[in-house]
């Protein structure tokens, strides 16, 4: 019994990870968010390579996409790739999207301010914004 107790925590973690790995190899995705379902969702999950792959395979860099609940907020979100990049403060992704033809609307800087995205805000420059309006606009999308 003493021996089992000694080995137990490490064994539980190792066997747990093994089950996790086997499940993934069989196509399941326990404990993870699974594959990103849109460009904005890939960006929100910080899978920037996944977002780039979807774009290079033909996804629209301007299209609004669904971000599932639990990834950015408890609610599902409808955002553009640029908005997702601002919400996670991913400036390299911002540059990538702009280089791929995404248009930067004025409200994006306001969204960066509302979301507290410091580096994105520095990149997008200062705008005159009503505090919270841009974020509320994104959250209120049907």
């Amino acid at each position, binding site marked *: 019994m003493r021996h089992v107790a000694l080995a137990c*925590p490490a064994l539980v973690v*190792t066997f747990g990870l093994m089950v996790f790995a086997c499940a993934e190899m069989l196509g399941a995705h326990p404990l993870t*968010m699974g594959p990103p379902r849109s460009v904005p969702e890939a960006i929100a999950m910080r899978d920037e390579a996944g977002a780039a792959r979807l774009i290079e395979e033909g996804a629209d860099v301007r299209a609004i996409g669904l971000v599932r609940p639990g990834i950015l907020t408890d609610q599902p979100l409808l955002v553009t790739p640029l908005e997702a990049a601002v919400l996670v403060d991913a400036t390299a992704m911002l540059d990538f999207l702009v280089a791929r033809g995404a248009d930067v609307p004025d409200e994006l800087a306001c969204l960066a301010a509302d979301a507290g995205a410091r580096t994105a805000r520095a990149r997008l420059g200062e705008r005159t914004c009503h505090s919270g309006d841009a974020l509320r606009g994104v959250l209120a999308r049907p």
Partner: protein
Amino acid sequence: MLSLTAERRWEIVAYGYGLLVTAVLGYFLVGLTIQVSDSFGNLLAVQEPTLGQVLRDQLSQRGYLRPLLWGQIKAVYELSAGDYFLWFRGIHVLQVAALIALCVHVMRPRDRLDAALVPLSLAVVVGAHTFMPLVREAFPINSFLTIAIACVAALALAQRAQPRWYVDAFAVALLAGSILTVESGVLVWVVSVAAYVVGMRGVSRTALITMTVAVVAYVLVRMLVLDVGSPSLSERASGFGFSTLEPADLVRRFEGRALVFYLYNIVSSIATVLFAEPKGGVWRFVWELTTGTLHPWTVVSVMSSTAATVLITWFVWSRRAAIRRWHLDGADRLVIVFGGVLLANAVISFPYTKNVIMSPSGVFLGLAVYVASRAWLRAIPQRHAAITIVLFTVLTCGWAFRVAGNHYNLRRTAAEQRAEWVTVDSWLDRQRIALRSADARALHDALRRDALVNHPTPFQPSTGWRNWFDIDW
């Protein structure tokens, strides 16, 4: 005969568990890709020149002397024939397999208790913050992992009952190969000498003299012939106090009194192995404690490392009479060798503090915990059961938590490494690297395709795990 069979059975169980740990880690390792930083540039550098030129060029570098590291990169690059992911990621998995197999070999589990302690000891090896950079980075071969393997291999050779000429030859070759791969390869010599001093006789005195001559020759050639020197204050950023100082800040603060900074680095390096604090020279736990921002990860890492240190300290104290008389058994020897490696490892990391440099000591900590735990569980009477339960609960649960966290971190790293490939052209501009040849452009395209298309980002952990494991590494 019967007891031999039983011993063998527990050994096989231990190796089986080691294989499982390797398989799980290997699965997460192949989720990583060849990095842009530290790897793409290195591969570009070895593309054009021949192997001989690569080796020769390394003899004229300032601060570092690592010809075999570059030789290995060049050799694997050529052998891969364009299948870079398979070769470089495959080598990383094989390296981890070798390290874990050697650790189990050195532990020599003989009975049920020994076998029960193997998961804890491997958790200390794999869960340490000093182990993490061995697996999350590669250049694209992780040279520090090579050194950790070589150090444990040197110990395994020393543990043999009697010296043999081929063991001696292998030990000398191991030292030569390690020291020419990365500077901390000198630890192979430290392990061999420490093992001999404590009475391990697997490597002969003649071989040790040869190794010592080789180290002296290396130092003299490095200093007097090649004029390589050691990294200066302005070489790279390093942790100090509660932040990481850039080279310019280091020069401003320690110019003319570099010894203070070097002493800080040595003390920090010892403390990071024993207490998981500071990490990379930064006193993160103290900072979080004083600002009321304690992260579960920091608390668990400090507590579990401290518990391991308490256990080893108790072991040394309980064996002080035998150690004073130099009547050492196998466990004493292993703990003393750990102490020697820790000290030497800290001294050679004097120019700057990095968790990865202390990785050999982190591995030896796992081995020391193994023998100290065994001694505790055999020696401590039942009336101290409460202490045993508290100590081993912190140890086993804490280190298991750290193993889980390191795997989480590998999964996050898989996404971060691939993100670098999205904007690789900006990186090339910042580094002022121009892809002039068709081969260079083909390498760029092949590695980017591997990272983005052929081996896409593995699924990212659910957000619920962030609160436990997501820290700024």
